[in-house]
């Protein structure tokens, strides 16, 4: 074994990361202002050039299908940025048309649409209401005149007399033949008369046969005559009703003409309205009775009812109402609608019902607008996930965009579940620009699964999460902060405070060279810092206010982290931070709970023995390991075989486990730690427990970058600090992750003081050396690792295992020898 020194850093080929390398403080010279109050507000979006260009392109193209899909992570400001651009565009556009539904006099089940210039729908609605009010006064007055009553009475009497006289004539002819015409319960009957009464049957039988026959024949003729009369009654009734209708039309026309003409002159520029008013006029003329006050039903005439008047006139007058579906201000721009609850009905509108006498009824006044109606002629913003999770909403949206019209139908009909008669409102022509906002994954999945997405949403607006950090970018970011403060009337921040905010943005970007442009967390931080500034009565926010806001934010969310750390410190969760041990390495795991991510050390152990060349991943066997984690472990086998026994079979069995881990483990960021545990066990070389490791490894032994490196380093540091920093503790991170390090100040202070260390490694050998304090060893001219080095020990152990395996194989494969005579059993 090679000699071991006291300072691992001095012998390690791993690069020691100095505190000065991690100086991430935003240089104050980049921020040439006193407070944000001095900064010009930002009139453009920071770091989203690609997205902004795409929005401008999409809004500029008026062709169908050029709708927008704004994708990116939540909180990046997608809706705000989109809305800002839409507002600018909408203000330049003319307001779209108002839309109404009116009664379809030709097909009542299919309400008709009416298009009016912006600002005219409500006026027409009011005008029609006034028209009905005036007709309700004028028409009954016209029908109350003595002339009308007399004329109507004449017509009614004419009809009544006509049928009574016709029957009476038959009766008179019967009487001439001494035959009576009688009312029977079901109609009329004829009978021979005797002494002003009906002849008794016995008297009839006593008559000569010829007389009986004559009477019967006469009655048969009379019955035929009466049948003819009764058959004529419905025709006479129709004629009489027609005459009454004509009379009603004449009387009504005198009232309606002037009122309708007045309206026509007010709307003479709108042909659709004029056509509608003509239909109204004709309908009023035909239905003047609707305007009459309800009266009790008139009594029946000799044969059935005469002229019944509708008793639901009050409710039926609503056929002249105008249902304003959507209206706009005449001096407003194009509408921008954000539908927060994009159900099928909320998108394409719905047909409501009213309970009348226990039955559900509907009519054109109960057709309600959806978001597409409201946004028609303008812009509609929708959350993609919400649209996709509401039943049939996505289909309805696509159908509307494809057909370029809005067809309102009940959801039950769309599903084909309900076949009851309902309304079929005339479709409304659609001209809208839809902006779907959603995560990238949703867009990619949808694009792969739904070919129509590409046809209907041709413009992809891809938002960046961050932007490169530079002096100019930081100043720009400062102006973004100033704009956000001003928009929310928050106190200005001094430049040190802005520097803290920028550092926090870099931390959120998880990259020292980039700044997160997520607006939601930025605004939250500004609002919370303002709260602390207000609490101390300051007019300008300071760096302390920002720090307190960040600490408070972390503090609010770190309950689980704190409890876990306490369990490590109490010894419940076994994590060693000093001493040495064979086959045991501190890995680093990251847990995401809600919006808070934190790192925590976890003990990884490995055991080796003779076997068939398989590295057993206990997490995987227990179905607690995810596929990426399993892949990382499988790579270890490849590394072992490739590096140490390229020409022979691996003859070991190894087990790897995350000790005291009871949840699912995913990701390959612990594969380096697992490999070090395995190599330590193979080499029988102890590992320094004051170190923790993160990083993934390749089959070639390269250590590769992983995510959340800041949380991992800080998680191990926190445990070490609680136990007391010894100066022999630290974390090994992939060299590629150094640029991602934006660590808390207390960590960088410890690095600076030399009480905690950080090593950047590029290869497994660098890590082995740092963890064991031994040289990893390189192959010599003969291609063998030097004895005593870690690699040499590993190679020797593997060769030994291979030889043992070969001997075992030979023993098992040897031919059967004749057996000796059996002796007594022992």
């Amino acid at each position: 074994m090679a000699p071991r020194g006291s300072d691992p850093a001095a012998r390690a080929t791993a690069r020691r990361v100095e505190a000065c390398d991690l100086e991430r403080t935003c240089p104050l010279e980049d921020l040439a202002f006193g407070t944000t109050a001095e900064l010009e507000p930002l009139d453009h979006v920071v770091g989203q050039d690609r997205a902004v260009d795409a929005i401008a392109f999409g809004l500029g193209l008026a062709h169908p299908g050029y709708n927008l899909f704004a994708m990116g992570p939540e909180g990046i400001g997608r809706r705000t940025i989109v809305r800002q651009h839409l507002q600018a565009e909408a203000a330049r556009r003319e307001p779209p048309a108002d839309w109404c539904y009116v009664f379809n006099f030709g097909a009542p089940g299919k309400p008709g649409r009416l298009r009016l210039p912006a600002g005219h729908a409500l006026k027409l609605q009011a005008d029609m209401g006034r028209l009905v009010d005036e007709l309700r006064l004028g028409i009954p007055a016209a029908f109350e005149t003595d002339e009308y009553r007399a004329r109507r009475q004449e017509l009614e009497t004419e009809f009544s007399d006509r049928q009574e006289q016709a029957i009476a004539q038959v009766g008179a002819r019967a009487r001439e033949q001494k035959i009576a015409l009688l009312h029977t319960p079901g109609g009329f009957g004829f009978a021979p008369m005797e002494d002003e009464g009906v002849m008794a049957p016995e008297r009839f039988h006593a008559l000569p046969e010829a007389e009986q026959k004559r009477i019967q024949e006469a009655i048969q003729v009379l019955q035929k005559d009466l049948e003819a009369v009764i058959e004529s009654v419905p025709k006479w009734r129709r004629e009489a009703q027609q005459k009454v209708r004509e009379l009603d039309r004449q009387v009504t026309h005198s009232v309606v003409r002037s009122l309708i003409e007045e309206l026509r002159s007010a709307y003479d520029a709108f042909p659709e309205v004029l056509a509608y008013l003509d239909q109204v006029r004709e309908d009023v003329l035909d239905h003047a009775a609707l305007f009459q006050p309800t009266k009790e039903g008139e009594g029946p005439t000799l044969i059935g009812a005469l002229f019944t008047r509708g008793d639901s006139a009050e409710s039926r007058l609503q056929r002249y109402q105008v249902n304003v579906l959507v209206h706009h201000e005449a001096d407003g721009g194009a509408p921008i609608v954000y539908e927060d609850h994009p159900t099928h009905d909320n998108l394409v509108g719905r047909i409501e019902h009213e309970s009348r006498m226990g039955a559900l009824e509907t009519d054109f006044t109960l057709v309600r607008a959806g978001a597409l109606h409201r946004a028609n002629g303008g812009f509609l913003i929708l959350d993609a996930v919400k649209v996709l999770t509401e039943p049939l909403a996505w289909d309805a949206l696509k159908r509307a965009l494809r057909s370029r019209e809005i067809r309102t139908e009940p959801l039950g009909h769309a599903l084909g579940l309900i076949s009851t008669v309902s309304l079929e409102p005339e479709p409304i022509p659609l001209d809208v620009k839809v902006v779907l906002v959603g995560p990238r994954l949703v867009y990619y999945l949808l694009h792969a699964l739904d070919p129509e997405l590409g046809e209907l949403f041709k413009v992809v607006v891809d938002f960046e999460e961050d932007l490169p950090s530079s002096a100019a970018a930081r100043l720009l970011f400062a102006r973004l902060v100033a704009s956000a403060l001003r928009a929310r009337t928050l106190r200005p921040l001094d430049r040190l405070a802005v520097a803290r905010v920028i550092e926090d943005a870099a931390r959120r970007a998880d990259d020292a060279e980039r700044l997160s442009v997520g607006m939601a967390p930025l605004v939250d931080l500004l609002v919370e810092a303002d709260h602390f500034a207000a609490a101390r009565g300051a007019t300008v926010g300071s760096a302390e206010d920002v720090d307190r806001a960040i600490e408070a934010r972390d503090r609010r969310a770190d309950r689980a982290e704190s409890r876990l750390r306490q369990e490590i410190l109490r010894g419940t969760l076994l994590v060693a931070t000093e001493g040495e041990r064979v086959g045991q390495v501190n890995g680093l795991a990251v847990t995401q709970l809600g919006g808070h991510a934190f790192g925590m050390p976890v003990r990884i152990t490995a055991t080796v023995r003779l076997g068939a060349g398989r590295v057993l991943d206990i997490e995987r066997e227990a179905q607690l390991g995810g596929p990426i984690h399993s892949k990382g472990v499988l790579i270890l086998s490849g590394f072992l075989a490739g590096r140490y026994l390229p020409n022979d079979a691996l003859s070991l069995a190894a087990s790897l486990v995350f000790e005291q881990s009871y949840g699912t483990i995913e990701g390959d960021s612990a594969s380096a730690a697992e490999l070090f545990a395995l190599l330590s066990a193979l080499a029988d070389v102890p590992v320094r427990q004051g170190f923790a490791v993160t990083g993934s490894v390749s089959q070639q032994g390269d250590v590769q970058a992983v995510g959340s490196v800041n949380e991992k380093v800080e998680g191990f540091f926190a445990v070490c600090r609680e136990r007391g920093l010894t100066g022999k503790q630290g974390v090994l991170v992939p060299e590629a992750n150094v640029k991602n390090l934006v660590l808390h100040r207390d960590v960088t202070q410890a690095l600076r003081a030399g009480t905690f260390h950080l090593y950047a490694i590029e290869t497994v050998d660098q890590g082995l050396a740092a963890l064991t304090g031994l040289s990893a060893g390189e192959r010599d001219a003969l291609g063998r690792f030097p004895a005593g080095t870690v690699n040499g020990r590993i190679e020797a152990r593997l060769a030994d295992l291979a030889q043992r395996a070969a001997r075992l194989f030979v023993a098992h494969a040897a031919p059967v020898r004749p057996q000796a005579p059996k002796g007594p059993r022992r």
Partner: protein
Amino acid sequence: MRFRRVVLGIGTLVDEQTLRAAAELAQSMELALLGLFVEEADLFQLAALPFAAEVSVPSARTRRLDPATMALALRARSGEARRALARRLEGATVPWDFTTVRGSALSAMLEASTGSDLLVASTRFGSGVDRGRERERVLQGLRECHRSLLLVDQAPPRAPVAAVIAPDASIASVAPELGALALHYGGPLTIILAGSASPEADRLNDRGRAVLADLGIPTRLHRVAGMGAETLQRELAAEPPGLIVLCGSARSLDAAHAALEPLAGALLLLPAPA
């Protein structure tokens, strides 16, 4: 004269207007009501004939009749009339009864009533189709039997009420009944007086008008020179149609009959005072 009961005659045609008038009058005058459904004997005679048939309304087809079918149909009508009357009198405080008799329409009513009953019937009461002959038979019957009869037309009641009273003395004697009827038909009451005026007639008229005024019914009186058919017709034509009350001698009734023939409306026939 004071009525003690309302007797409602119901025939083959069940007329809602007549039911309503009888029910409202019984309640407003607080009189008991008897519903009398008459199964006309003539209809059974017809049904018993070997060739008996009925021209159906509204199918206009002739179908065979027999006594059993006729009895069944009339029983159904009787039940229908009873239910309709019960609906009309639902919640009423006056006692009422319903019965079915067989006979001729008018004679059945006369037999079931006394001189103190107010008879109420439809103008289409009875199975005969000839209305003129029916009315003539009714008037003849009333002359002989001294009954008061309200004949109700199927047309809905219309105000104001026109009344003809002769001789003058009757106003005072029938004022309460007139008041009840006027309330039913929705007054005011117009009274046309026949014959020449006299101090005694004026005194009686004033007394009758005072009774009506106490009932809250405004009354208008005007006098015509004679009771001739032409005069009456002219006077009545000037009034809107409504209730017409006739009270007087056989001569005046005959004249009224001629005058009323072309007019629609309800007709109250009162017997001449003794």
